[in-house]
């Protein structure tokens, strides 16, 4: 909990600076845009917190978003004869199932195939994206569904982000699964000697992040009424990992702060927005983001030593 405090302080200071210096920033529409924009990869970052707490990593999330989006929109188009509401349900369910399946594949490769998480998810990172690109013929899949746009517009992604954050924070702190995830991340052998089913616990973390990729894909598809098989979800996994790091969750696992990750998500969102508003070249945004990540870790490291 202590390390996540740093993220909240940074978020507070950043917010203060932005609110004071930019009147455009203060605009409610802009605030909604920032938070909504941050939500899509933010939801994944929350799942990533669990994965990293359990001693793993998931590089395939961004590709899985494109995979879920592409195939759920295809499924929606297949049942174009049905009512718009039914189509929406079909799309949502397909997206969630695709995500769950993708996560399950990662989890199975890592826990039963005994492939290191970095390598397994690097493999599926390539596979999920490629399958999406193949299905959509490297293009965009577009749909026209009034319900979808209505449901996924406005503050919906932000609300989903907050609800998921609350649920996962509760999971980590108050449920046996949450305790076991941290125990596995803190020491796999100790956990197995404490009669914890290490594989099942770690599998659960990948299943959760996979499903959250499905949620993210659904929201993203609704916002744009389309999914780009090549572009959608690109770099989401890296943004997610960055938010987890900024939030103070150690990459070595064993500890997690979901709220810290949420702060990390907003920090990254605000930075790219304010750089736009200060008319700093979009091409430099990566540099600033990178500096923030490095500084976050440096700061946390100093704190631990001192």
């Amino acid at each position, binding site marked *: 909990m202590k390390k996540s405090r740093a993220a909240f302080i940074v978020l507070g200071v950043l917010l203060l600076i932005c609110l004071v210096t930019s009147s455009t920033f203060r605009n409610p529409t802009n605030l909604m845009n920032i938070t909504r924009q941050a939500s899509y990869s933010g939801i994944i970052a929350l799942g990533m917190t669990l994965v990293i707490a359990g001693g793993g990593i998931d590089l395939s999330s961004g590709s899985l978003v494109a995979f879920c989006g592409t195939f759920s929109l295809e499924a929606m188009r297949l049942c174009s004869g049905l009512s718009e509401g039914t189509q929406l349900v079909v799309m949502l369910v397909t997206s969630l199932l695709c995500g769950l399946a993708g996560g399950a594949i990662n989890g199975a490769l890592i826990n039963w195939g005994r492939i290191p998480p970095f390598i397994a998810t690097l493999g599926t990172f390539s596979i999920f994206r490629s399958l999406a690109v193949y299905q959509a013929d490297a293009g965009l899949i577009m749909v026209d569904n009034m319900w979808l746009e209505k449901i996924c517009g406005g503050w919906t992604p932000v609300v989903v982000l907050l609800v998921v954050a609350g649920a996962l924070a509760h999971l980590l*702190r*108050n*449920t*046996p699964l*949450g*305790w*076991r995830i*941290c*125990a596995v991340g*803190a*020491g796999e*052998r*100790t*956990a*197995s*000697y*404490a*009669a*914890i*089913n290490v594989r099942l616990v770690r599998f659960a973390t990948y299943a959760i992040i996979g499903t959250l990729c499905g949620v993210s894909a659904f929201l993203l598809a609704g916002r744009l009424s389309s999914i780009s098989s090549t572009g959608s979800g690109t770099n989401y996994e890296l943004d997610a990992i960055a938010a987890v790091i900024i939030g103070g969750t150690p990459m070595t696992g*064993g*500890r997690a702060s979901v709220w810290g990750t949420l702060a990390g998500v907003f920090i990254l969102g605000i930075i790219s927005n304010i750089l736009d508003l200060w008319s700093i070249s979009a091409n430099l945004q990566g540099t600033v983001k990178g500096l923030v990540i490095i500084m976050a870790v440096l700061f946390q490291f100093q704190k631990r030593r001192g």
Partner: protein
Amino acid sequence: MKPRSTGTANGCEWTSGTSPLLTIRGLCKSYGTNRVLDGVSLTVRPGRIVGLIGENGAGKSTLVKCILGLVPHDGGTIDRRATVAAIHQELSLAGGLSVTANLFLGRERRTRLGTLDHRTMQREAAAIFARLGVEIDPRAEVESLSVAQMQWVAIARALSAEARLLILDEPTALLNRDESTKLFTVLRALRGRGHAMLFISHKLDEVAALCDELIVLRDGVVVSSGTERLEPEEMARRMVGRELEALYPPRAVPQAGTVLRLEGAFGGSFELHVGEILGVAGLAGQGQADLGETLAGFRPLRSGGLTVQGRPVRFRSPRMARAAGIGYLAADRLRDGIWRDFTVAEHVGLGDLPRYTRRGHVQHAAIRSATERFIDTFQIRCRGPAALVGELSGGNQQKVSMAKVLGAEPQVVVFNEPTQGVDVGARQEIYSFIARLAARGVAVLLVSSDMQELIGLCRRVLVMRAGRIAGCVEEDPITEESLIYLATGVHGT
């Protein structure tokens, strides 16, 4: 400062005669407000083996680190007149490299062209091993060696670096009796050639047998030093600084009734009775750990049958064993027994989560009060339930590890080397705890390489050899001779 663990610290060159190789005067060292060494003075002369003993936390490791120059000291002087090499409990060798490469790491011999001179290095390595009288292939990968062989490599490395002062930190912790005996023969031979040694061990009988001088450290102060011959009991008293009650509690009396029966497995059969402490002995790596892990569900039972409380069982996972009432305490505490970054309360909670879960939710308050109870019963010295286990001393970590297992109230507890690396004070507490457990009717299987421990606690000891139960010693009292007899199988084969 370069990090060096098996490293060497270069002092001046060759010193002859009996002038000290190491002189320390008034050494002080504090970590924060915690004074770890408080005016330590000692002298090590060539051809002497100096024993250094003290409880965990007495300052032994810090003293060694200061001698090696790994940490700066705050006051006093350290005068090194020889190359010093330390051989640690956890040997820091480069596992993937060959034995030769490890011996010459950082001091590689080169040909005139500047390339590595493998032939010379291998020849020198073979010569050193011949001098030590051990057979190790210089080309073998270190990873493929046994722990004892790695120990030899570490010693050979020190010798090849021309170290005249060796610091041996718990060198026999992972060795069996034969290997220890051999090590001592070599150490005595080195002493004869003018090497000096600082020998650190919890095994006081070894210290008594080997050392010419003895330094007792307590709370960072040298409380006793000199050439006076001390009995192990007297050493222990000086280490602890108070009169130790008898190390072993009265031996547990088994009650009628069988808790567990293993039949036709590990080449034999045995029964474990209510309230019994059944020992498992043997030379290192003869399958004792396998037996314990099989009972606890970590390994499948290959043949035969296991009956717990009269019911035949077949464990496919540790969870099934746990559910059948079998708890397991792992040998390697740091790797398998605790989570360093977790609090005492989290250990207690994770020890038996289902007990502390109501309708899918972990009951924090219940865990906290259970933890307070455990801290009390186990006499865990810590700030409270929120203390991080990594900050506790070795003995207290072991008690947390035990609390974690015993929270589930098992009927049978398998202890695998419960006192490895634990000092004499905490050891006594652990023994009395095991005895109280047995008195409450819990059946204990005690796997240990410390024969004195088995003799002190058990009325029956199974002896294993080559993965099989070679026999069961039931005499009263049990003698070391009959255990060794069965363990080595001298008479039969």
